[in-house]
């Protein structure tokens, strides 16, 4: 799959932003006034910034509002609704903390649940894709949810919880890599089923439909990510999990906390790039490629 920068920025930043909003909704940390304002500002910049960046890859961003209509069948539509509901609920809850010095707990829990729901609906956009076997498994939402929670705990300054969640998210990320590596072969889709010519024998692409490239090849066939997969996994794992955990185990200081956050974001962004770049779409088979 083509690793579109807008989608990588969106899923990385929004995941973190909504993760922070989950913890703020649960009263962790229990901040009020100006302190609360800054925490909410960071959460909103990340969540809204990510959502806005995701509209950059649309062919017609001005019609994006129409995407709220098909929640009955479409995970993308559900994501849009969930995100807006979460942002509105958390804005009301945040206003209570910042301006009225009062914690409307039920609103906070509702906002936290909607924020968690937004991350889940985002992950289901990918997990539902039967055409991309590497994504089509329950481990995909597990990865998105634990990464969002770990990043949220890190931003919310929940040191112990952040360490536990980083270990959990790291383990699940590793699991998605290992299980994902054999997913395409296990899906049962190959050139023989794609062409229906398997009854005759082994199928090989002889001539493509055209001499140049096309939208499908640009969007779905990407081989550079797989070439450097192992190196990128080591870099992503070190930056996203190992370095932040070590930094959190050191005596607390704000500089160290900021370094841990920066390292985590860089690691998650690398892993997210790889999530797209090494995913193989079955349509590549028609071109004799993966």
């Amino acid at each position, binding site marked *: *799959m083509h690793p579109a920068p807008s989608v990588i920025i969106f899923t990385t930043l929004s995941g973190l932003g909504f993760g922070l909003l989950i913890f703020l909704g649960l009263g962790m940390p229990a901040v009020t006034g100006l302190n609360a304002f800054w925490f909410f500002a960071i959460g909103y910049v990340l969540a809204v910034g990510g959502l806005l960046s995701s509209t950059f*890859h*649309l*062919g*017609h*961003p001005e*019609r*994006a509002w*129409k*995407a*709220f*209509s*098909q929640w*009955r*069948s*479409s*995970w*993308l*539509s559900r994501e*849009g609704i969930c995100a807006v509901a979460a942002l509105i609920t958390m804005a009301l809850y945040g206003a209570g903390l910042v301006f009225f010095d009062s914690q409307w707990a039920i609103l906070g829990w509702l906002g936290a649940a909607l924020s968690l729901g937004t991350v889940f609906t985002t992950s289901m*956009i990918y997990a*539902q*894709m*039967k*055409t*991309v076997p590497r994504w089509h498994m329950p481990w995909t939402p597990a990865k998105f949810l634990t990464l969002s929670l770990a990043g949220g705990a890190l931003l919310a300054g929940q040191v112990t919880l952040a360490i536990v969640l980083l270990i959990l998210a790291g383990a699940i990320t590793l699991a998605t890599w290992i299980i994902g590596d054999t997913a395409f072969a296990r*899906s*049962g*889709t190959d*050139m023989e*089923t*794609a*062409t*229906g*010519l398997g*009854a*005759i*024998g*082994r*199928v*090989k*692409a*002889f*001539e*493509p*439909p*055209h001499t*140049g*490239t*096309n*939208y*499908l090849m640009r*969007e*779905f066939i990407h081989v550079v990510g797989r070439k450097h997969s192992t190196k990128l996994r080591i870099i992503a794992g070190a930056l996203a999990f190992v370095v932040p955990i070590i930094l959190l185990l050191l005596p607390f200081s704000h500089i160290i906390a900021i370094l841990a956050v920066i390292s985590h974001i860089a690691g998650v962004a690398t892993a997210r790039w790889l999530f797209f770049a090494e995913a193989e*779409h*079955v*349509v590549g088979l*028609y*071109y004799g490629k993966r």
Partner: protein
Amino acid sequence: MTQLPTSTQKKLGLVIDLDTCVGCHACVISCKGWNTENYGAPLSDQEPYGANPSGTFLNRVHSYEVTPLATSAKPHPAAQTIHFPKSCLHCEDAPCVTVCPTGASYKREEDGIVLVNETDCIGCGLCAWACPYGARELDQDEGVMKKCTLCVDRIYNENLPEEDREPACVRTCPAGARHFGDFADPDSNVSRLTAERGGIDLMPEQGTRPVNQYLPPRPKDELPEFDVLAPYLEPVADNPGGFIGWLDRALDKLPSKGA
């Protein structure tokens, strides 16, 4: 509405005969020609005369080489070239429809055709992700998703002579490799062809239940095992005469190593 209809009155679709297709790409050209100037946005090209041309097509023809498995009777089976036209298969369980966030993609209840309402399409590309067949292409000029309409603006078009009321690809195919009809009617041309020739679904494991059917190539003729030209290539003269005959006999008389 992007929920799929529980059933459709008709199941319009194509039968594509892989035995007959000669790979001429006439269907590709007629499809682009009709659909670039009729239903919806034109099918744009980028850099058509430049160094890196590309463009939107609703139908593309691939070519594959298939090597039959070796058997003891045929240790070195000959490879076959098979031309393979591919367009939207108008699936009954169309995953491209249900993922659409705006309701732009839909499957028609009356005839099962999968269409895109281009004024609702936001160009997110998710339907192209969901399609295992590569039947949808995002037009780079218009920013909306393009796909085969089964020439919905031809098949019901009473301004056209009756013989033209079929998809452009079917109308133009010089080999008769493409057939259009209603799969819901067991007596239709397409249903009978599918039954007689053992029509197959592409990627059945994806669970899309495609309407379009592909007819597998018929078994190839078996060549006789003997060499048909051999009897005509036998040496005509076993005992050469004349100068060559004398030379042959004279050389035989000389002592040689083996003798």
